[in-house]
């Protein structure tokens, strides 16, 4: 039993990682209706920026703050420079642009920092809380806490600030938002900046665990997709819950279902996605009317 609970705890730890990236995915989808394939790579790039700051001798927390700022500006710039020219083009065109961005960012990171793994400091202590035969790593705990805090901050931003209200207005009805005087273009850029910042948090959380290298986020992205689909692509809360569920399901399946084993456990997100979509196409927390694609 303790072993089972332990697997659940570990699954939650993995799930928190997926959730953090899923949050960033969902943010951009909410505002622009496109799935950003480059999200994981941008997160990876942010982690490299943090690494670079630390390599230059900055302490972790300062590096973190600077990285978040750089990522925010970078995200806005990408929207303005890369995405803006294809605004109004067919959705698929925009999606393919993000695929191009994916390939570009991945290769650029390898070019700049090489494909060898980098040592990334873990902001959380190494030990674990032991209780009742369960062991809960501080770093797992830390990740869950950070994801929780990010989600809380996003909630405050969206529900209790003017900017957040404006962003939600743009997400729900861009042309009407324009009429009430919201600068829609800038709001979209803001959404990208925000997503890039959340992605940066994800990248920095993930880097000490998976080890930093250009392909670090490739595997995570798929699970983040599953998480976002599960939770509903328009719901940040859903993304987090979806991430946790995917993490636990995948871990349990890999550990206890003999046939699945560790090689076929990537199939678990597939099955989850299929079932959820067939039963409830809008995801657990999504609204039915949002199928934009």
């Amino acid at each position, binding site marked *: 039993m303790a072993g089972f609970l332990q697997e659940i705890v570990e699954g939650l730890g993995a799930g928190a990682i997926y959730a953090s990236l899923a949050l960033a995915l969902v943010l951009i989808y909410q505002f622009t209706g496109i799935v950003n394939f480059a999200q994981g790579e941008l997160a990876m790039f942010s982690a490299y920026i943090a690494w670079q700051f630390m390599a230059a001798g900055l302490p972790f927390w300062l590096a973190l703050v600077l990285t978040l700022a750089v990522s925010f500006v970078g995200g806005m710039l990408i929207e303005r420079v890369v995405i803006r020219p294809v605004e109004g083009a067919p959705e698929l065109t925009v999606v393919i642009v993000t695929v191009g961005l994916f390939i570009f960012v991945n290769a650029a990171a390898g070019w700049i920092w090489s494909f060898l793994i980098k040592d990334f400091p873990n902001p959380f202590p190494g030990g674990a809380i032991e209780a009742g035969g369960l062991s809960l790593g501080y770093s797992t705990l830390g990740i869950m806490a950070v994801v929780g805090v990010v989600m809380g901050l996003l909630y*405050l931003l969206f529900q209790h600030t003017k900017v957040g209200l404006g962003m939600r207005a743009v997400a729900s009805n861009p042309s009407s938002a*324009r009429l*009430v005087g919201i600068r829609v273009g800038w709001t979209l850029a803001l959404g990208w900046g925000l997503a890039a910042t959340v992605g940066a948090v994800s990248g920095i959380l993930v880097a000490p665990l998976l080890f930093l290298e250009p392909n670090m986020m490739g595997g995570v992205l798929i699970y983040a997709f599953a998480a976002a689909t599960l939770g509903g692509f328009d719901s940040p809360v859903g993304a987090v819950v979806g991430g946790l569920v995917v993490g636990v399901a995948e871990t349990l399946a890999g550990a206890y279902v003999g046939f699945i084993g560790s090689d076929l456990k990537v199939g678990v997100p597939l099955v989850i996605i299929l079932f959820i979509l067939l039963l409830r196409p809008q995801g657990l927390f999504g609204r039915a009317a949002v199928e934009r694609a």
Partner: protein
Amino acid sequence: MSENAFLTVTDLRAGYGGARVLHGVSLAVGQGEICAILGPNGAGKTTLLRALSGMVRVRGDVRLDGADLSGRSPDTIARQGVAHVPEGRGTFMPLTVEENLRLGAFVRRDRRSLRGLRDLRGRRGGSAVDADLERVHTYFPVLKTRLKQVAGSLSGGEQQMLAIGRALMLRPRLLLLDEPSLGLAPMVTQELFRIVRAVNEEERTTVVVVEQNAHLALSIAQQAHVLESGRIVLSGSAEQIRADEQVAQSYLGYRV
């Protein structure tokens, strides 16, 4: 038409892509007036409003109280005090009624503090925006009872009231109404027009209303223009237009 009109439009041309819809429209509206734009489907009435609020690209001259609006972006024009209630109401469906209303005041700078921070402290009231919320409630008491409700759950008439209420939150100098009667029961429509009239009288808000229901529009308007194929074919006071039976038949499609 007054000499130094509040809103002047001179030789306005606009369209979508290659298709030209407005072919040189000129008109003037005096401060505090209600101006009705009438005409058949596809005449360019909606495009005219969209041109005024910056939603479509225009050539020509648009001036509001002397300030040039042509070629400005919608948000800049909104900041100038132009509130546009689009056809189909432009409701922010997933947001609450209150949020919809507050979005109307998005560009106003006279608000004292961020609403959210106040909410967190559990206090409310005090700012000009809150006063305006109260004002909208007096016009549309039904909205007050639904403040926390999701806007998408409102009936069509309530959504139209919400849309107008949202526009009033801007404390607009110019209110653009596009087919407010569309899809509503006659009783509701009459009530809406009564309120528009009241707003106009109490707050001296200039109104340009596009309407299929010419009878209703003319009942509150001071002047009217008939648009056909992107050109103004007839202008005059509301009484003149209403009195001209031939006009009524050929352009408005109804008998007075």
